[in-house]
C-alpha cells in the first residue's frame, strides 16, 4: 500500500476511530486533549498528501483541487479543536453543558471532520452526497446541543431545510447518473466524477441542465446562498462557538466544493447550459441580501454568520465568472475567508464569554477593557471587510478588477454589495471595540494562539503568498476553467 494511500486512509480513519474513543471517555479534559491530538494527526496526514497521491479509485480520488480543500479543512479543524479545548470547559462551568453532552460533543466533532473529509476525497458522487449528509446531521445535533428554545428551534430549522436541500441534491445526482449511464453505461463508472468529467461531452445536455438546477439548489442550500440561506444565521448564532467556526470555515466550503465538481462536469459539455450565469446571479443576490441584513443585527454571532453568506456570495460570483484570474481569486478568497471567519468566531467566543452576552448592545469599549482581544477583533473585522494588508483585499482586488475589465455592469452590484457590507461591519465593530466601555472587564483566560495563527496567516497572505501555493492555486484555477 503506497505512501499516499496510507495518508488517505489516515485522513479518513483517524477521525472515525477518534470519534469512537471519545464517545467512550467520560473525563472531558482528556477527551478535549484527544480531540486536539486526533485533529492534529489528521492535519499532518493530510499534509502528507502533498508529498504523494494515492491512485484514483472509483470511490476515492485525491487531485490538486481537493488537496487544497482537505489541507485547509484539516488545518482549521485542528486549530478549532485547540480553541474548543480552551473554550468548552467554560461552558461546563457556566452550566450550559453537562459532561454527557460534552462527551457527545467531542465525538460528534470528529464525526463532522470525518464527514467533511470523506466528502472531499470521494470520487463517487453518491458517496459524496452521503458524506455531506453525514456532516450535516452531525452539525444539526451540535447546533441543538445547548437545548435552549432558540438552539432547538435553530437546529430544527437547519434540519428541515438541510434535509430538503439534501433531497434536491440527491435528485440531481440521480439525474447526473442517468445522463452518464446513457453514454458510459451502467455501473460505478457512471458515478465516478473523474470519469464523468472526461466523458461529459457525450452526455445528454437536457439531463445535465436539469441535474445542475437541482444540484445548485441542493448544495447551494448548504453553501448558504440566498434565498436558501435561512438555516445559516441561526445555526451559527445558537450553536457552540467552535461549531460556528467550523460551519462558516469548513462546511460551507465543502458544499461549495461539491458544487464546483459538478460545475466542471457541466463546463465539459459544450451543448449544456453554461453554469456561470446562474452562479453569478445567485452570488450577487446573496452578497447584496446579506449586506443589507448586516445592518439590523443585534446578535454578534448572527452578524458574522450573515457576513459568511456575503462572502460565499462573492466566492460563488468569482467561480461563476471563471477564467484564471477570477478562479484564482475565488480560491484565495475561500481560503482567506475560512481562516479569517473562523478566527473571528474564536475572538467572538472569548468576547461573549468575558462579557457574558452575545448581544452587541451589551459589548462596548473592548479595546479599553481587553486591549489584546479588542484589537484582535478589530484586525479580524478589518480583514473580513476587505481592508489591506489582509488576504481578502487581494482576492477582492482581483475579482473586482478582472470583472470590471470583462463585464463592467456586473462589477457595479458587486462593489455596491461590498461597500454596503463594509459599512455595516465597520459600524458595528466601532461600537463594539471603541467608546465608553460597558460590561465586565474580567480577564480573558482562554488561549489566543489559534487567533494569532489564523490572522497571522491572513496577514502574510495579503502581502506575500509562497510560490508553491501560487502554482498550486493556479493549476486548480486552470482545472476549474
Amino acid at each position, binding site marked *: 500500500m503506497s505512501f499516499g494511500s496510507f495518508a488517505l486512509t489516515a485522513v479518513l480513519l483517524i477521525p472515525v476511530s477518534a470519534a469512537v474513543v471519545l464517545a467512550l471517555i467520560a473525563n472531558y479534559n482528556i477527551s478535549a486533549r484527544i480531540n486536539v491530538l486526533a485533529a492534529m494527526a489528521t492535519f499532518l496526514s493530510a499534509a502528507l498528501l502533498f508529498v504523494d497521491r494515492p491512485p484514483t479509485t472509483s470511490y476515492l480520488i485525491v487531485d490538486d483541487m481537493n488537496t487544497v480543500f482537505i489541507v485547509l479543512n484539516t488545518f482549521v479543524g485542528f486549530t478549532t479543536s485547540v480553541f474548543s479545548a480552551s473554550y468548552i470547559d467554560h461552558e461546563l462551568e457556566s452550566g450550559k453543558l453537562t459532561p454527557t453532552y460534552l462527551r457527545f460533543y467531542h465525538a460528534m466533532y470528529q464525526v463532522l471532520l470525518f464527514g467533511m473529509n470523506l466528502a472531499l476525497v470521494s470520487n463517487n458522487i453518491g458517496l459524496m452526497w452521503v458524506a455531506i449528509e453525514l456532516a450535516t446531521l452531525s452539525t444539526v445535533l451540535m447546533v441543538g446541543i445547548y437545548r435552549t428554545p432558540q438552539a432547538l428551534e435553530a437546529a430544527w430549522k437547519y434540519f428541515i431545510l438541510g434535509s430538503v436541500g439534501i433531497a434536491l441534491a440527491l435528485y440531481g445526482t440521480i439525474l447526473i447518473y442517468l445522463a452518464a449511464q446513457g453514454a458510459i453505461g451502467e455501473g460505478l463508472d457512471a458515478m465516478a466524477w473523474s470519469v464523468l468529467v472526461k466523458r461529459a461531452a457525450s452526455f445528454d445536455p437536457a439531463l445535465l441542465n436539469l441535474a445542475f438546477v437541482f444540484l445548485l*439548489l441542493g448544495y447551494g442550500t448548504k453553501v448558504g446562498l440566498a434565498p*436558501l440561506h435561512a438555516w445559516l444565521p441561526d445555526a451559527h448564532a445558537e450553536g457552540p462557538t467552535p461549531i460556528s467556526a467550523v460551519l462558516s470555515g469548513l462546511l460551507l466550503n465543502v458544499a461549495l466544493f461539491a458544487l464546483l465538481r459538478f460545475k466542471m462536469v457541466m463546463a465539459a459539455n459544450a451543448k449544456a447550459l453554461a453554469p456561470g450565469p446562474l452562479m453569478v446571479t445567485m452570488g450577487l443576490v446573496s452578497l447584496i441580501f446579506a449586506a443589507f*441584513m448586516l445592518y439590523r443585527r443585534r446578535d454578534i454571532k448572527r452578524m458574522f454568520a450573515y457576513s459568511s453568506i456575503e462572502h460565499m456570495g462573492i466566492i460563488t460570483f468569482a467561480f461563476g465568472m471563471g477564467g484564471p484570474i477570477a478562479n484564482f481569486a475565488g480560491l484565495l478568497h475561500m481560503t482567506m475567508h475560512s481562516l479569517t471567519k473562523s478566527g473571528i468566531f474564536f475572538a467572538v467566543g472569548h468576547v461573549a464569554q468575558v462579557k457574558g452576552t452575545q448581544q452587541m448592545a451589551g459589548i462596548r469599549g473592548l*479595546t479599553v477593557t481587553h486591549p489584546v482581544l479588542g484589537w484582535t477583533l478589530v484586525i479580524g473585522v*478589518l480583514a473580513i471587510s476587505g481592508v489591506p494588508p489582509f488576504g481578502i483585499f487581494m482576492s477582492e*482586488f482581483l475579482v473586482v478588477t*478582472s470583472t470590471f475589465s470583462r463585464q463592467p455592469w456586473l462589477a457595479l452590484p458587486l462593489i455596491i454589495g461590498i461597500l454596503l457590507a463594509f459599512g455595516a461591519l465597520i459600524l458595528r465593530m466601532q461600537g463594539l471595540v471603541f467608546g465608553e466601555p460597558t460590561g465586565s472587564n474580567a480577564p480573558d483566560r482562554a488561549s489566543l494562539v489559534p487567533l494569532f495563527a489564523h490572522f497571522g496567516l491572513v496577514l502574510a497572505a495579503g502581502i506575500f503568498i509562497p510560490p508553491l501555493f501560487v502554482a498550486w492555486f493556479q493549476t486548480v484555477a486552470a482545472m476549474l476553467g
Partner: protein
Amino acid sequence: MIVLVALASVAGLFVTALLAVLVGRDRPAITYLACISFCLVLLAIAGATLIAPTSAAETLTLPLGIPWIGMHFAIDSLSAIFLLVVNLTAAITSVFAIGYSRHEHANARVLPFYPVFLAGMNLVVLAADAFGFLLAWEFMSLTSWALVLAQHREAENMRAAYIYFVMASLGTLTLLLTFGLLAGVDGSYTFEGMRAHHLSAMSAGLVLVLALAGTGSKAGLVPLHVWLPLAHPAAPSHVSALMSGVMTKVAVYGFIRIVFDLLGIHAWWWGIPVMVVGGATAFLGILSAVFQTDTKRLLAYSTVENIGIIFISLGLAMSFAGEDHPLYAGVALTAALLHVFNHAMFKSLLFCGAGSLLVATGTRSMEKLGGLIHRMPVTAFTALIGSAAISALPPLNGFASEWLLFQTILLSPSFSAWSLKLLAPSIGALLALTAAIAAACFVRYFGTIFLGRPRSAEAEQAHEVDRYSLVAMGMFAALCVISGVVPGLAADFVRPVVDLLLPNGAMAPQAAVPWLSFVPVAPDRSSYNGILLLIFVLSSASLMAVLVRKVASHRLRRSAAWDCGFPDPRPETQYTASSFAQPLRRVFGPLLFGAKEHVVIPSPGDLNPATFAVTIHDRIWDVIYQPISGLVNNIADKLNRFQFLTVRRYLSLVFGTLVLLLLILAIVSRS
C-alpha cells in the same frame, strides 16, 4: 538603489510603529524623533531626484503582492516632488508633535499608527503597480481612521471616523474599477503595463470620471467632501495637519499619476469636468469655512477650498494639453504643483497653530478665545503669516501660486474650443471671489482668536506653548515666506515634473531671470517679483515710521478704548466670530445654505429675553447623503423581515426558487 534606500526608511517607519507598540508608549519623543530621521532620509532622496533628474525612472520589484506580478516601486520626478511635500511637512509636524504629545492623553492610541500613517503616504507615492498603490492607499486611510479614533470616547468622533472610513472605502473601490479598466482583460497591473495599454475613447473617459471620483473622495472634492470637515478636526492636531496638508495632496498625486501619466490626456474637453468640480469645491469650501466657529473645522473647510483651486489648475492643464498647447499646460501644471506645496506649508502651519491653541486653552471654539496675541505672541505671529499666506496676499507663497493660476487663466484666448474660452474666465472670476472670501475668512479667524479681548477664562489664562511647537511653526512660517518671495526658484523645482508629464511643456528656468523675478510665459506678458515687493514694503514702512517718530512726536499714552465715547469693558460686547460672519452670511447664506435668522423681539411689557438664532443647512448632505442612508435603512428594514419567517415560509422560498429555475430551464430549452 535609491528606491531601495527609500523603501528601507519606509520599513524603518514600520519598525518604529512596532517598537512604539511594544516599548515606547510612554516615551513619545523617541518615536517622533525616529519618524523625523526617516522623513529626512526620504526628503534627501526626493531632493536628489529633483535636482539631478534621471531620464529613466529606476524601478525595483519585490516578490510581494500579486504573485505573478510582484510589487513594483519607482521614483520619478513626479513621485519625488510629492515625496518632498510629504516628508518635509511630516518632519516638521513631527517636531511639533514632540511638544504636542506632552499634552496628548491618548499617546498609546496615536504612537503606533502615526509612523505607519507616514509610511503609507510614502508608499502611495513610491508604488508603481496598481496593487501596491491601493495597498498603500488603504493603509493611509486605515491608519488615519485609527488616528481619528484616538479620542474614541466622544460620540461625534466615532461618527466622523465611520463616515470617513466608508467614504475612503468608496474611493478605494472606485479606484479598483479605474485600475481594472486601465489594466485590461489580461490584468497587466503594473504602471508600465497600463501606460502601454491603449483604451477606447469611451473607456478612457470612464477612467477619467472614476479617477476623479476615486481620488476626489480622498482629496475632498465636492460633493465627496462631507467626511473631511468631520474627520480632520477629530484627529490629534499634528495628525490633522498631516491629513489636511499632506494626505489630500497624496490624493492629488493619485489623480495626476493616473490621468496625466498612466492614461494620458486624450481630449480637450476632459479639463471641463475637472475645472467645474474644482470651481464648485473651491467656492463651497470657502463659503462653508466662513461660517464655522470651530477652529479646526474652519481650517478643514479651507482645505476643501484649496483642493478645489488645485483641481482648477489641473483642469486647465488638461485642457491646454488636450488642445496641444504644452507650454501653457506646463504653466497650469506648475501652478497646481506650487499650490500643492504652498498649501501643505501654510495649512500645516495653521493646524499646528490650532493645536497650540487647543493645548493652551483646551478649546476649539473661536467664541471662547480672543486676545491671545498678548499671551501667545509667537503662535500669533506665525498664525498671522499663515493667515496672510492662505489669503493669497503678496508677497507670501499663497499669492505666488494663485498669481500663476490667474496668469494661466489669462492664456485662455488661445483655446480654440468655445466652451473653454467662456469657461476659463468664469472660473477665473469664481476663483477671484473665492480668494477674496478666503481673505475675509482668515481676517475673521485671526481677528477673533488672537485680537480683541479674551472671551473666556481659559483664554485669559492661556500661556505660550512649548519650544518644540514654536520651532515647528517657525519653520513652516519661514517656508511660507521663502517660497513666496522667490516663486521662480520654487517653479524651477517642479520643472522636471512638468518635463516628465508634458513633453516640452516646461517653462523657462527661472533662476536665469535677473533680480530673482518670476516670468512664467514672457517678460512683456507678465512678471512678478516677490522679494522686491517685500523689500519695498518693509523699507518704506520702516522708513516712514522712523521719519515720523524723528521729525514729529513719538509720544504715546495708554488709556481705555475710546469706542466713540461708549466704551464697554465687558468682552461680550465685542464682535464674535458669528457676528463677524453676519454680513457675508446675509450675502451668500440664504442662497447656498438656506441660512435663516430667527429673531424674537418680545412685545413691550413681556419680560422674556429677546432671542436671535441662525440656522444653516448643509444642502449637499441633505440632498445626497441623507436620502442614501435613508434608502439603505429602508431596504434593510424591509429585508430584515426575512430573519423572522417561519420554517414553512423559508421552505416556500426554496420551493419558489426551484420552480423558477425549472421554468427558466423549460423556456431556455424550448428556444
